């Protein structure tokens, strides 16, 4: 177990390092940030000074070494546009994104598991089929278009909910959150629904497939033969067994929800780090792009690692074969 964790940690560091190199070199090759960041009418001397101040005059490898040295100490460079530390900008926007992602994931789990269970218990009933048809639609609909339609219906036509922004935030331990106020929820509900839709479809399918499989197992037949009521058979024997893979997938998907928030945040003008990334790509704000990508890769690697370890802890049948190798 320990060997496995250590191996995965080393692997993670290698991936992170490789990503930093690819991203840094690649983003450098986009174009010349000098042209974008410095007033074209500036005096040549002024230009020189600005280039030197941003460190853009030094060779690429030297910039990378400087960047790496900083990265180890948590300094990922300064934003060209905002003139503040890039990592600080990301961290500042992170609570908004995480809040959105958690609410979306919660929605997907709270709705997806019961709906999937229902569809799995009654695969041939009209209700079961309707749930599956809805889940296929959830897979097919492009997230951004669903977002637009939600705005069209609930903001423009019905005028029930605001179409953009985050609304007021309340500080909890120094972090602004919006789920504590009614107006915060009004702002949160549309983007969270939008973001949840795809994962909801996924969880419905997974739960349905798991339920159908579990119902054929001997332990369910025995539980029925013992005369246990249906509620207990489903609630304890079926649910417990299908919950492990579902929880695993839900955990793994959290990372992808954070990544997908880029799209939803752009549609709803949600002030999170995804919107910051899109703005930074458009402005060629190199340090912020690099910082965002490294942060999200780190989040992904952490989530994958935690889920892998938890999975083996939850399910004794899973042997971490790599620990022997």
């Amino acid at each position, binding site marked *: 177990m320990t060997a496995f964790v250590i191996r995965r940690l080393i692997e993670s560091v290698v991936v992170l390092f490789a990503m930093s190199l690819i991203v840094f070199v690649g983003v450098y090759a*986009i174009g010349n940030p000098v042209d974008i960041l410095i007033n074209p009418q500036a005096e040549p001397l002024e230009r020189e000074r600005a280039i030197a101040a941003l460190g853009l005059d030094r060779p690429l490898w030297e910039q990378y070494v400087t960047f790496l040295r900083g990265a180890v100490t948590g300094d990922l460079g300064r934003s060209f546009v905002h003139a503040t530390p890039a990592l600080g900008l990301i961290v500042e926007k992170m609570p908004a994104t995480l809040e959105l992602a958690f609410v979306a994931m919660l929605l997907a789990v709270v709705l997806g598991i019961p709906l999937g269970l229902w569809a799995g218990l009654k695969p041939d009933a009209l209700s079961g089929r309707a749930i599956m048809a809805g889940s296929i639609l959830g897979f097919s609909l*492009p997230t951004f*278009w669903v977002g637009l339609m939600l705005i069209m219906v609930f903001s423009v036509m019905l005028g029930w909910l605001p179409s953009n922004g985050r609304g007021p935030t309340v500080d909890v331990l120094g972090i602004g959150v919006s789920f504590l106020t009614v107006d915060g929820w009004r702002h949160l509900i549309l983007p969270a629904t939008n973001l949840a839709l795809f994962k909801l479809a996924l969880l419905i399918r997974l739960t349905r497939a798991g339920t159908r499989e579990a119902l054929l197992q001997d332990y369910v037949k025995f539980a029925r033969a013992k005369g246990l009521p249906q509620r207990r058979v489903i609630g304890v024997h079926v649910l417990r067994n299908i919950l492990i893979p579902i929880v695993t997938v839900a955990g793994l998907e959290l990372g992808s929800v954070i990544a997908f928030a880029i799209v939803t945040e*752009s549609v709803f003008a949600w002030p999170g780090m995804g919107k910051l990334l899109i703005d930074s790509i458009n402005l060629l704000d190199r340090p912020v792009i690099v910082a965002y*990508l490294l942060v999200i890769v780190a989040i992904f690697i952490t989530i994958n690692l935690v889920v892998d370890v938890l999975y083996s802890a939850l399910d004794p049948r899973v042997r971490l074969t790599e620990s022997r190798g």
Partner: protein
Amino acid sequence: MPASAAPVRDPGVPTSPLRRVAADFFADPVATFGFALLALLVALALFAPLVSPQNPYDLAQIDVLDGRLPPGAAAATGGTYWLGTDDQGRDMLSAIFYGLRISLSVGVASTIVALAIGVVAGLAAAWAGGRIETLVMRVVDIQLSFPAILIALILIAVLGQGTGKVVAALVTVQWAYYARTVRSAALVERRKEYIEAARCLALSPLRIVAGHLLPNCLPPLIVVATVQVAAAIALEATLSFLGLGLPITEPSLGLLIANGYQYLLSGKYWISFFPGLALLASIVSINLVGDRLRDVLNPRLQR
């Protein structure tokens, strides 16, 4: 699963595999509907210049005074804007036909390139084994652990914008799926007798892999490729919507939707709504076809 699992139909009449698959496919009304819808969309895309009421990108044919007209409005030049006009006075119906053309061709082109790369990588991994296999599959695993949108955004941030770069991003996102699919199929197939027979005939490895192994790995590949075309179209639309996709000179459906976004808030829904419907129709029809193909081509499900 041995070949004998194939259905035994009327043994007197020899049927080609293609005809059998087609007969199976069209036995399902939903899949038939999906296929018909897809055929219609492809035809509209192919013949967009012929079927469109106007050429939306010929400045001589559009009139800014006709801008933002609702669906069904009469054009100043006669005729009707059935789906309304955008802010430039373009007929939305024509813009959608042309957009469909661009969206579908980007999706198909990127899929074909990715398929070629993925198949070569996957076959090489399965055939060579050892270090090559470990390397290829490690790259595939790492790539597939990140969502497609993130990989595409990283590439766009790295490469910059433009049609070729969007296609490159879509190819990079997709190839791993094909590599994985073709490898797992090839690992099963390479242990079968016909490969052994081909080896005994001392055929060159290239000929065995390309002539004997690859054709037998095709069914799962076709299924994955179909679904991936839909995914590529959706991803391209998303990138274009974010302003990081195709340039304004080649307005795909995603760009049309993005273009209508600002007018949506003032109730002018049609500029975004109808291109979205066209996008949705493309994706759903491809997925319906892909779902059915999966069932038809899967020997395990054949009764």
